[in-house]
């Protein structure tokens, strides 16, 4: 139960930079998710918090305590590894008891703690089994059990549910979140799955190529991505991007693409002007913020042709071609179009994102 402060941290492997000038403050009892594609430096960051990697430059504090030079065993952390890293020759009970045994806790207390954790994770009946006799989900629970028995200051999760099947993964997301709330322990959770970040975290830190892109609540990240990378990485299906030209000025700018002319709101236009946007920009729009209508006389901004439709059960994913580009639309529609059918697309202009084409930074 402590805050974690990452201050100006850099990480190098030889000459290769893994993490660049990272500043994050994880608040007390917060569930923070480090999100990014593989190789973005999120795991290196986590391992630096654990003490498994040295910090090339910068400082890490647990509360007020600088931990740079403290070995893992003295940091009072618990880590859950991607491949669980269970001790294969030990039973579930012994695996979970190991950290307590190393603390020289007495046997009855150990047993009490392990059983408590096992009950919480619903693996009591597995305590005498060896890891080889466990399913993926059970192994994962054991690994979590090993982490929670000792009530550490900080939980570190390194993609703990990446190897479970889809159904179990969604179940575990809920459980992990519940567990963290119940134990009230500061948690840093590394994942490449944006869904995990969105559903579990209090705040998400999106990383890319060693650089922190954005730190914010899931809502902020989703609704106000600061740049094209964050916008494209978060959200499923991913955001549509279109290269557009700005026409007009002042309060009445509009985005032009092919035969489309999308009028912007007054405030949006002003932002573009005050921030000095170039003529050429990139429009970003989420599939949820598009509406579609079949037929030719739709009266909507955009005329397109259906490329393919993918029913998801409730919603429908429609990919539609227009001009050189293809857009994904996520809607509930009654009418199933055939590939090649004409359709019209409407844009919810309040949910538009406009990015600088060179730097990828968002204007709004």
């Amino acid at each position: 139960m402590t805050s974690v402060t990452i201050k100006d941290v850099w990480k190098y492997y030889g000459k290769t930079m893994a993490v660049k000038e990272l500043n994050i403050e994880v608040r007390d009892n917060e569930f923070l998710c480090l999100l990014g594609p593989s190789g973005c430096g999120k795991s290196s960051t986590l391992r630096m918090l654990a003490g498994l990697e040295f910090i090339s430059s910068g400082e890490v504090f647990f509360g007020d305590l600088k931990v740079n030079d403290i070995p893992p065993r003295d940091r009072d952390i618990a880590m859950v590894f991607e491949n669980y890293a269970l001790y294969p020759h030990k039973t579930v009970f012994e695996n979970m008891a190991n950290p307590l045994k190393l603390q020289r806790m007495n046997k009855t207390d150990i047993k009490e703690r392990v059983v408590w954790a096992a009950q919480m994770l619903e693996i009591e009946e597995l305590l005498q089994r060896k890891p080889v006799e466990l399913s993926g989900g059970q192994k994962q629970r054991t690994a979590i059990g090993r982490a929670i028995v000792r009530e550490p200051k900080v939980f570190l999760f390194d993609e703990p549910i990446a190897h479970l099947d889809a159904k179990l993964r969604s179940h575990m997301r809920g459980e992990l979140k519940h567990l963290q709330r119940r134990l009230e322990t500061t948690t840093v959770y590394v994942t490449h799955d944006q869904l995990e970040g969105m559903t579990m975290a209090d705040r998400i830190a999106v990383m890319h190529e060693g650089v922190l892109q954005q730190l914010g609540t899931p809502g902020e990240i989703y609704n106000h991505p600061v740049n094209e990378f964050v916008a494209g990485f978060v959200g499923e299906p991913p955001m549509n991007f279109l290269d557009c030209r700005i026409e007009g000025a002042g309060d009445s700018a509009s985005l032009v693409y092919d035969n489309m002319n999308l009028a912007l709101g007054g405030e949006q236009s002003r932002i573009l002007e005050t921030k000095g946007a170039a003529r050429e920009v990139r429009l970003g729009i989420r599939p949820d913020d598009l509406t579609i209508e079949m037929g030719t006389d739709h009266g909507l901004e955009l005329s397109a042709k259906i490329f393919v439709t993918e029913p998801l059960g409730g919603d429908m994913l429609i990919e539609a071609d227009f001009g050189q580009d293809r857009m994904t639309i996520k809607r509930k529609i009654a009418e199933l179009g055939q590939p090649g059918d004409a359709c019209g697309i409407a844009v919810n202009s309040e949910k538009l994102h406009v990015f600088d084409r060179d730097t990828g930074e968002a204007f709004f």
Partner: protein
Amino acid sequence: MASREIVRYKSPARTAFSVLVILFLIIFFVWTVLPLAIMLTSSFKDLLDAFKLPAEGDWGGVGVMFDFKPTGAHYVELFTEKHFGEYMRNSLIASLGSAVVSVFLGSMAAYALSRAEFRGKKDLLFWIISTRMAPVVAVMVPLYVIFRSSGLVGTLPGLILAYTTFNLPFAIWILKGFFDNVPYAIEEAALCDGANRWQALRMIMPLVAPGVGAFIVLCVLFGWNDFLFASIIGSGGAKTLPVATAELVQPVKIQWGSIMAAGVVTTVPMMFLGLLIRRYLVTGLTMGAVRE
């Protein structure tokens, strides 16, 4: 080469082929087992029976091979007059001693070589493997000179050390392969659990323990079967079974019965050990290149 699941279609050519295959297997079986059978039976034959052969071309007479009155006299002679009990003890002490020293030091070194990255690591590994590969005759003379000057010739410690020249590089090399297969994550998990380095190492030892055990046995085998080192470094006070067996060849008469019995005594324990570590045998004999 195909697996059992693959469908086979019958044809006359196929049938003829199968007959050939079976014939070949039978011949190969006999070829492999016959010498062993002859060694075993001859060790229980007295002189007359051992030398009985059918006339040339008398194929029906093959039966005389098994027509004998078994006698344990050769074995009794070996262990009473010829002191084979003592030689067996020497063989055991020298090979086991060297195996334990080699695997103990070897596993420490192997762990270090598996975990550490340093300049010259490749050269070090190359040196280790070529030490193992060096022909015994090539290094025998200087080794003898050194051992004689340190008073190790003809002693069991000397023999242990001599066997270590091939067992230690073997153990380092092969156990490094074993440690390489142990993921770092387990040690990292142990460190996070609050273990120190030594405790973390202990945590992965059970993972390599079967291999360590098997390679102790294999080192025993290498030492036990050695002849050149034993006959030169061990000459005098530390006579081992292969040397003692060779000494049964005397100018006047070769005591074939005793030699066969000595062969059985030398070979049978190793065959049992071989069966015991069956799973690791090919790995061991190919320096870890082939895993089953």
